[in-house]
């Protein structure tokens, strides 16, 4: 997983810092543009009694755009533009995604079947898949965590948590 660069040093392959810098700066630039667009709609001028509702956001958006352009200019024209640094190696990215993707599925699960049931499934899956634990241990720990949160939130502190669009625990009466 390593390429030979011209300089002779071994650089692991992955997403480069340069690409990541550009992506984040463009993301910020887009956000700045959106904010500016809405500020113009609201009115960004200085009227008799002070600034309009869009005045503050407008200049914030200007600063976001200016600073993200500044970052971009440093990427393209700065002293370090020739450097090839790796933002994240493919192997690392795979590990990060192996947390992120199940986490996204977990959040979707919360929306459907509620926090308690989704948590059991998520913890158990994660332990079996990445930790290579047995199904029995994993499901047991998942249930233990869910029961503990249930006791703490619904019973002791009386803070109801999200039960999902299809509440599978409706038979408990909470």
């Amino acid at each position, binding site marked *: 997983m390593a390429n030979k660069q011209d300089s002779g040093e071994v650089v692991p392959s992955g997403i480069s810092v340069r690409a990541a810098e550009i992506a984040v700066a463009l993301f910020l630039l887009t956000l700045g543009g959106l*904010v500016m667009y809405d500020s113009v709609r609201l009115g960004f001028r200085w009227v008799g009694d*002070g600034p309009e509702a869009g005045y503050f956001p407008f200049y914030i958006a200007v600063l976001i755009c200016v600073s993200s352009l500044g970052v971009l200019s440093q990427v393209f024209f700065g002293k370090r533009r020739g450097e090839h640094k790796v933002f994240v190696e493919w192997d690392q990215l795979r590990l990060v995604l192996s947390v992120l993707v199940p986490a996204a599925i977990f959040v979707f699960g919360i929306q459907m079947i509620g926090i308690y049931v989704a948590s059991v499934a998520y913890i158990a899956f994660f332990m079996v898949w990445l930790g290579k634990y047995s199904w029995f241990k994993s499901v047991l720990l998942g249930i233990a965590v869910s029961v503990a*949160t249930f006791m703490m939130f619904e019973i002791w502190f009386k803070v109801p948590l999200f039960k999902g669009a299809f509440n599978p625990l409706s038979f408990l009466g909470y």
Partner: protein
Amino acid sequence: MEEINALFHGFSVALTPFNLMLMVIGVVLGVLIGVLPGLGGANGIAILLPLTFTMPPTSAVIMLSCIYWGALFGGAITSILFNIPGEPWSVATTFDGYPMAQQGKAGEALTTAFTSSFIGAFFAVVMITFLAPLVAKFALQFGPPEFFSVFFLTFCSFIGMGKEPPFKIVAAMMLGFALAAVGIDTVTGQLRLIFGWHELMRGFDFLIAVIGLFGIGEILLSMEEGLSFQGRTAKINMRIVIETWKKLPKFWLTSLRSCIIGCWMGITPGGATPASFMSYGIAKRMSPDGGKFGTGMPEGIVAPETAAHAAGTAALLPMLSLGIPGSPTAAVLLGGLLIWGLQPGPLLFVEQKDFVWGLIASMYLGNIVGLIIVLTCVPLFAAILRIPFSIVAPVIIVICAIGAFTVNNAMLDIWFMLLFGVMGYAFKKLSYPLAPLVLALVLGDQAEDAFRQSMLISQGDVRVFFSNGLVGSIMALGLLMLFWPLIGRMKAALRKSAA
């Protein structure tokens, strides 16, 4: 002497069995939070905040601030035993702490770290006791322009003091302001930046941002490092503690200097992280053993730990006396005040004496409780770090999701938490600072209100910000901070051309 009386009154408020129990729970939870990856002081408190809705405010703030002390202590454990800084301000502690642990002196290193932390925090609490009421009294005369100038100084300090590239500091901060502007405009009542999406009307809650940026982001970052931690074991017993304590007094000068650096950096929102690096750097230059720093010198632990804790504690001074937090954790505590129905700001010292002095007294007690707990329970906390990441990670994500949901009982917030997590991961790797983003999100509305009220008073004349000596000098200081990076560069250029 008024303060001493008030402080003793505070002790009588804080010293009930219930509050003492909350202190112990808070410190233990805090150390756990500081030790576990993905749960730091700021988002740990953010997650637990909704559980304190029903508690009396004084007890609630005592528990939450004790979590903060615990988290400050906990950061040192991972730095020294595992060479993994649990919190950004413990990075400098790894320089000499981990080498000491490798040489088998982990117990000594931990004792040194905990004791220095305690001294730093204690120094800062004494300062808060005497300075905060004065600042609050002074701030009672503040009008909107003065408040705006303090906000201005706060944000400019990030640019002047920050280690990150100035463009990135500005971008992160402005992103915070933009997110704060989403929702109903407090002055005109217009809906801003929601683009027809009515669920956005509430705006972005900074607690969600804190949980996502610091919690999920941190988990993603630790995931990169792989799944296993390799650590050293530590034995601490009374003998080691006493032996270490006998050696510490000779570092009194380093300690005092670090306390002062920490307090200064904590009040002006430079924060604990730069304070710890600055203190380490200065100690290295001044110490006769400076050349040996980095190989396991106790003095190299004293300097950053003392400064980080002094700064972390001092950050509560502007939060209490002005209602302007100096760090993300202080901002979360400030959010707590609002939830418990207290109005932060200088009036707090007049209207909520029990609360304020109970909190200040609990800082003394909480740090003593903290020191005792960490000195006695290190092996226990270190054992927690040996729980495999494949168990810890999903449980922490579940806890973060629950925390994000309970802030507003909104499902959408859990999605936002995930988004903020990805953002936190990318921002941290590209050294966009997160603290100014969070503080701008917390203070954005207030800063804007202060600005617009000043404009209403002066009928649109910007000169109101220079209309008297006080507001003028704070603004001037802010401008100096704002252009500090440029001034520094110009100085370097001049020096080069002179040479």
